[in-house]
């Protein structure tokens, strides 16, 4: 049995990183992720975590350093948000292209301009195509559990892809709530010792990592990455259910978490902390509504979502990001997998705009009226 502590989301992330016993941490502070770096510094300073901590001079160097460390054959961690993630952008492709099992947490935050430190998903959505697995969390417990599972997923031989664990800035990162922390030895047993599988910088067995891949090989490597993502669609549920067996907690099948969907006429598809508010609305106001919480955005469990929304009266997505000049990302992915289902699109909660109960009710109304199917409806906006 674990022990319950009342902590914020950043602490949950740091505690999980400590529990899995990472070897090298390189991170640069940025609101609202900063406390993760501070907590981990404290753990290392106190000797609670035996890791090398690299005080890098930028997020670009943070991700670069963990790429170097991971390639040398150790378990690594970094964390960032917003502009910091954008600064890492280039190296994200390289980390996944080199198939390094890096785990990074992102405290989701909007991108400038105007400068805004508050939550939305623009930062991680902009990294959608970097070939990182993206898992979104609804609660601080889910952050802790997901970071631990992320190492198992990333290090799986059939996957070998980096994982981004995303949680909403402030709404989770700076909010305290009870979280059950498991005994560290049990977590370490669950995650296992890190063993490099496909590469290691070691003079005993010299390898060349990150070579030039020309037109005769590049495309093959990229297709292999896609296949690895498809494998992750199998591995994520396996890890989720193994975790449940051991610790008693799960999040749907690890890819999506349906809530009241079977009995629902209207289905909302959403990601992150807003799913909690949606569940609250379903419980308190609209028992005829269901929720599909998308936990894994990459790989995208599109077929599972399609099966759940086929035949429903109304379906609506909530995106906390937009693809300007087109339709927002979650809607686009849902539609790509369910072209025959009418799906309404709403955009809410950009730049920390609170998503209130009344906003969720408005989202449901948009769906019921069949609006937003070819142009997103912006919720609680004044222009």
């Amino acid at each position, binding site marked *: 049995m674990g022990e319950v502590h009342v902590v914020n989301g950043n602490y949950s992330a740091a505690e999980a990183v400590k529990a899995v016993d990472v070897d090298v941490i390189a991170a640069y502070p940025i609101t609202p992720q900063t406390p993760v770096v501070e907590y981990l510094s404290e753990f290392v300073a106190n000797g609670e975590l035996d890791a090398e901590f690299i005080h890098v001079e930028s997020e670009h160097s943070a991700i670069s350093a963990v790429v170097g460390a991971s390639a040398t054959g150790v378990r690594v961690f970094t964390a960032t948000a917003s502009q910091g993630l954008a600064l890492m952008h280039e190296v994200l492709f390289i980390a996944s292209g080199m198939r*390094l099992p890096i785990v990074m947490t992102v405290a989701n935050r909007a991108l400038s301009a105007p400068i805004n430190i508050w939550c939305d998903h623009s930062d991680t959505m902009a990294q959608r195509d970097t070939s990182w697995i993206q898992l979104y969390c609804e609660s601080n417990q889910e952050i802790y559990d997901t970071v631990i599972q992320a190492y198992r997923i990333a290090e799986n031989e059939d996957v070998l892809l980096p994982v981004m664990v995303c949680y909403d800035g402030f709404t989770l990162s700076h909010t305290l709530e009870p979280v059950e922390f498991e005994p560290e030895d049990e977590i370490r047993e669950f995650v296992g010792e890190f063993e490099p599988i496909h590469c290691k910088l070691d003079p005993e067995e010299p390898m060349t990592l990150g*070579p030039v891949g020309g037109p005769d090989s590049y495309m093959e490597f990229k297709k292999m990455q896609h296949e690895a993502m498809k494998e992750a669609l199998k591995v994520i549920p396996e890890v989720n259910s193994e975790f449940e067996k051991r610790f008693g907690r799960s999040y749907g099948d690890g890819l999506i978490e349906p809530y009241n969907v079977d009995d629902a006429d209207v289905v909302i598809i959403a990601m992150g902390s807003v799913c909690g508010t949606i569940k609250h609305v379903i419980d308190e106001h609209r028992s005829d509504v269901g929720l599909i919480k998308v936990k894994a955005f990459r790989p995208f469990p599109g077929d599972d979502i399609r099966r759940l929304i086929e035949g429903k009266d109304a379906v609506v997505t909530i995106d906390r990001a937009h693809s300007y000049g087109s339709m927002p990302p979650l809607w686009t992915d849902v539609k790509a997998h369910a072209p025959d289902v009418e799906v309404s699109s709403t955009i809410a909660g950009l730049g920390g705009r609170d998503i209130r109960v009344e906003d969720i009710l408005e989202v449901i109304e948009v769906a019921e009226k069949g609006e937003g199917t070819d142009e997103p409806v912006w919720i609680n906006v004044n222009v």
Partner: protein
Amino acid sequence: MKYTVGAVIKEPGSTRRNKTGSWRIFRPVLDHEACVHCGRCYMYCPDGCISLDPEKGYVIDYDYCKGCGICAKVCPVDAIEMVLEED
């Protein structure tokens, strides 16, 4: 071609398969009689294709020599001559 996970190359020194000797226009020819075995040609070869044979002295590996001509220039006794490659 075999495609490894993450494009990792596990065969060190495998560019040896690529015989850059075909790049050559001029060919260094070492006069072993004139050679004083100072090793300058060996030191300065950017392609590492001059080595010391205990029997023959310094030898040039024409499989890889690109014919840059540095060895001929640095030879203190002009023991290396650059001659036009034939066919």
